[in-house]
């Protein structure tokens, strides 16, 4: 099947999406208006409390900060509650339609996500997350290749007195059936050591004791972007053929994000870092702006397009 272009999508927005977009936009406007009123009321209340407190002689700092903080929390809570239904409707109509526009064999579930066990099984990240959430799960077949992906946010929280939270991964997590048989384990990580130290970065890389042995590949550009660990030198190169390495480099340049890959249990796992929430509507910007729709489309297309970008539908080997 031919990949959808941005022009195709523009046309689809005008024909297939416009009715839904207009209905949702009306709902968004009403919601935004009500929230503005609610915001004004909360701000007014805060001001009155501040005034009264000021008169009874409470110190500016920190005493007067409390009403402001409570007001902000209250407003956030109201926004969250009021926006819930809108977000649900937005995902159930707009995102679902964009997904099936990209490929009608794809299925979208707004509230599901890739399970934690799968995330750990990918072996990309060594720390097992103890706070784990996600949404926007898409699954289905692109040609001969079974794919699934979702947005994920995996964190690790340390207990005890100095409680702190660290993000292990946030972004898009993609899984597909790989087109070759293999039995080894292979992890491709963004290269930080080699970027800083050039060729000397190889030595610290090989000291990484928690990982499998380092696999040195002959493509210098690939080695610049990535560091590869695996437990089988030959199979690693069978998976990372010269053409796949080139495709991964191109994909890395196209996304310009931190890109992690792993090959485990006959599957390919791709993790793409994002600093923002994906596929979420915005309450205070209009829906009718094509730029916004383009962002949703391109984020989704990037994930679905991995099959083409990495040529996973090429089935010239014994795996069909």
């Amino acid at each position, binding site marked *: 099947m031919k990949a959808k272009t941005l022009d195709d999508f523009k046309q689809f927005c005008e024909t297939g999406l416009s009715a839904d977009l207009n209905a949702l936009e009306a709902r968004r406007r009403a919601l935004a208006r009500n929230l503005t009123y609610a915001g004004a009321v909360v701000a007014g209340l805060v001001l009155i409390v501040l005034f009264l407190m000021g008169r009874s002689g409470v110190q500016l700092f920190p005493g007067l900060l409390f009403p402001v903080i409570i007001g902000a929390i209250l407003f956030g809570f109201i926004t969250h509650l009021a926006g819930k239904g809108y977000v649900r409707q937005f995902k159930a109509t707009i995102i679902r339609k964009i997904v099936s526009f990209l490929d009608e064999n794809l299925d979208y579930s707004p509230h599901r996500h890739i399970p934690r066990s799968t995330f750990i099984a990918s072996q990309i990240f060594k720390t097992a997350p103890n706070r784990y959430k996600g949404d926007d799960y898409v699954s289905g077949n692109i040609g001969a290749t079974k794919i699934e992906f979702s947005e994920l946010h995996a964190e690790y929280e340390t207990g005890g007195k100095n409680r702190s939270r660290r993000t292990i991964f946030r972004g898009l997590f993609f899984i597909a059936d790989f087109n070759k048989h293999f039995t080894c384990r292979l992890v491709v990580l963004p290269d930080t050591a080699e970027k800083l130290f050039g060729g000397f970065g190889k030595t610290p890389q090989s000291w990484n004791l928690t990982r499998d042995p380092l696999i*040195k590949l*002959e493509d210098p550009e690939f080695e610049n972007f990535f560091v590869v660990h695996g437990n089988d*030198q*030959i199979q690693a*190169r*069978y998976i990372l*053929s010269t053409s796949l390495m080139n495709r991964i480099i191109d994909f890395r340049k196209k996304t310009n994000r931190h890109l992690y890959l792993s090959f485990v249990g006959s599957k390919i796992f791709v993790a793409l870092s994002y600093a923002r929430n994906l596929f979420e509507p915005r309450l205070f910007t209009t829906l009718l702006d094509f730029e916004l729709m383009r962002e949703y489309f391109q984020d989704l297309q990037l994930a679905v397009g991995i099959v083409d970008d990495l040529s996973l539908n090429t089935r010239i*080997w*014994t795996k069909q």
Partner: protein
Amino acid sequence: MPIAIVIIVPLLLIPVLIYNSLIARKNQVLNVFGAIDALLKKRYDLIPNLVATVKGYTQHERSLLEELTKIRAQALSGQISDDEAVELDNKLTRALGRLLLVVENYPNLRASENFMHLQRTLTELEEQISAARRAYNAAVTDYNNAVEMFPTSIAASMMNYKPRRFFEISEKQREGIDAGEHFRR
């Protein structure tokens, strides 16, 4: 006295570590070379099956099929040097490439399940062989670096280790692979 131990023990350890790392690198090279050998043999094992399948559909390709059988017999006779083995392997790759081109004239053969499976297996093996060659070259690079770089070079010359040659793919062989790819499209 403790200070002497702190100085002497590492000094004694260094030669041991250098010696062991050289051995490890040599073994890695041998290990990957063995893997290439095993994969090449696997490819030879496909030939009888391939010949039998193609024979059923074609009349005019006798000589090509006989050539394939002959190459296989020579390769598996066990009385050939490494250089001859490489030469035979190149010959086989070329002959297989020609066969895949010729098959284009026989749509029935091309469509047969048996042949399609053989062809996939062949493609897979070819890619595994090329992966093993790349792994071999990586292992040789590692080994040669150790043999030629200071200070491991001193130990290497004492152990009589010499730099090894890379696995080079000849021009002709590249053509052979291209012919195969031409067919797949």
